[in-house]
């Protein structure tokens, strides 16, 4: 199963202040551990929201708002995607991360195909169905 680990923004990350040498080297070591254990599939740090934008959807209308955005704590500043055997394993890996100072990191499980099961959305099911028909036609043509 996969988990996404969400690192939230803070004043520094939003101001574009890079972490100090010590934090960078601790984080580097931690990432290396994750890679060596075959756990890390992806991971990126994000630039401050001042370099980003938001698009709002209303009917056919699209409204673009440029960053920065005010609610710092709600913003994402980085993420990992991990492959683990259990939720507990993901938590155990996260506990080993070199964060401090009251930082809260969020762990979210990624949907897998089988999680949808019979509750597969109608759209997806229709897509699958179309696909099956196509496959059958193809098979017949061959």
């Amino acid at each position, binding site marked *: 199963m996969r988990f996404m680990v969400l690192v939230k923004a803070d004043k520094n990350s939003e101001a574009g202040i890079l972490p100090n040498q010590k934090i960078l080297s601790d984080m580097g070591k931690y990432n290396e551990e994750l*890679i*060596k*254990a*075959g*756990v890390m*599939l*992806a991971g990126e740090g994000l630039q401050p929201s001042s370099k980003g934008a938001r698009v709002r959807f209303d009917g056919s209308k699209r409204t673009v708002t440029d960053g920065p955005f005010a609610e710092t704590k709600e913003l994402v500043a980085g993420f990992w*995607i991990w*492959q683990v*055997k*259990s*939720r*507990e*394993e993901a*938590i*155990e*890996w996260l506990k080993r991360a070199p964060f401090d100072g009251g930082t809260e990191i969020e762990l979210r499980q990624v949907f897998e*195909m089988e999680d949808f099961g019979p509750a*597969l959305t109608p759209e997806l*099911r229709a*897509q*699958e169905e179309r*696909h*099956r028909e*196509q*496959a059958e036609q*193809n*098979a*017949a043509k*061959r």
Partner: protein
Amino acid sequence: MTATDPHRAIEAVFRIESPKLIAGLTRYVRDVGLAEDLAQDAMVAALERWPETGVPEKPGAWLMATAKRRAIDVVRRAPMLERKHAELARELEAREAPDFDEALDDPVGDDLLRLMFIACHPVLTTDARVALTLRLIGSLTTAEIARAFLVPEATVAQRIVRAKKTLADAGVPFEVPRGDELASRLAGVAEVIYLVFNEGYSATAGEDWVRPGLCEDAMRLGRVLAELAPGESEVHGLVALMEIQASRLRARTGPSGEPILLLDQNRMLWDRLLIARGLTALARAESLGGARGPYALQAAIAACHARALTGDATDWARIVTLYEELGRVAPSPVVELNRAVAVSMASGPAAALPLVDALANEPSLRAYHHLPSVRGDLLVKLGRAREARREFERAASLTRNERERHLLLERAQQCA
């Protein structure tokens, strides 16, 4: 209220720590069987202590310290045991107090790599290599391995016990092979990992056609190996092959578990993250000069499919060339059969049929259901329905996988 079951949390710690622990202990006691017993004992001790004391800050170091104390106890208290143990006791006592952190840190991961080489040692049967690798490096329980391979738990347990005994009897050293031996032994490790992957990717037996959990276990082992042996191009080739193949897992089965063949798959379901990882690993293999390695070549073939947004956009001519190359470096009837399929796509079924017919008397393919299945496919395209039907029926009778048998019988029926 605790957020998470403490027992399961401790098990998660074990899963993370156990390979390093067993590797470090094997270096210490020079016997992988004893090392695993000691690791088990330490984990039992942790299960007793940690629920009260909480998980220590450095759980790995705690486990290692506990296991090493126990190692000295075990050999001291058993003077009647074999001479080997008496020797070991003297050796352990003579050695300086072990540095637990150092043993666990193992910055280059040499101990873990040595453990992989032991688990995949040629003195062991293939079944034993698979079981031992999943147990020692993949941290799977005996029950999990048994479930994955649809065999009784006792069978797996016995396989592991026997394997450890075989290793001890043969006096297999705890080392990374050197020189010429390294390449062949590394190929042996890769083979075990790929075998696990394939059992998950297209199960040879049972009701499910794919078992994604097993693919994930294999990929994790492959990624670990790639970090332990970063300069070995074929290891990256293997990782590339597994990542790209696994990217199709979601699209490979329909809603009720039936197999969907490559060209019929909904490519929107292919996992882009795994494809990107696979292409990166392939580029790494090639940059290390390994473009002609058997795994890298197979990965390059898989990459041709991954890059094509639709089946029609597939570069079949390049795939034919890659199979020709693969046939030169790792000739096998299965490669020839796959080449024939690529030829039929690139140049039409009439060009491919003679290639398939040339394999008709190949002893190693006698029970291989893909041979009649491919031949049936070509015959359908050539309008020879009656012959095609016989081939599909034959293929259905050869496969041991229920889902696949069903699909093949369906195809037979379509050849009215």
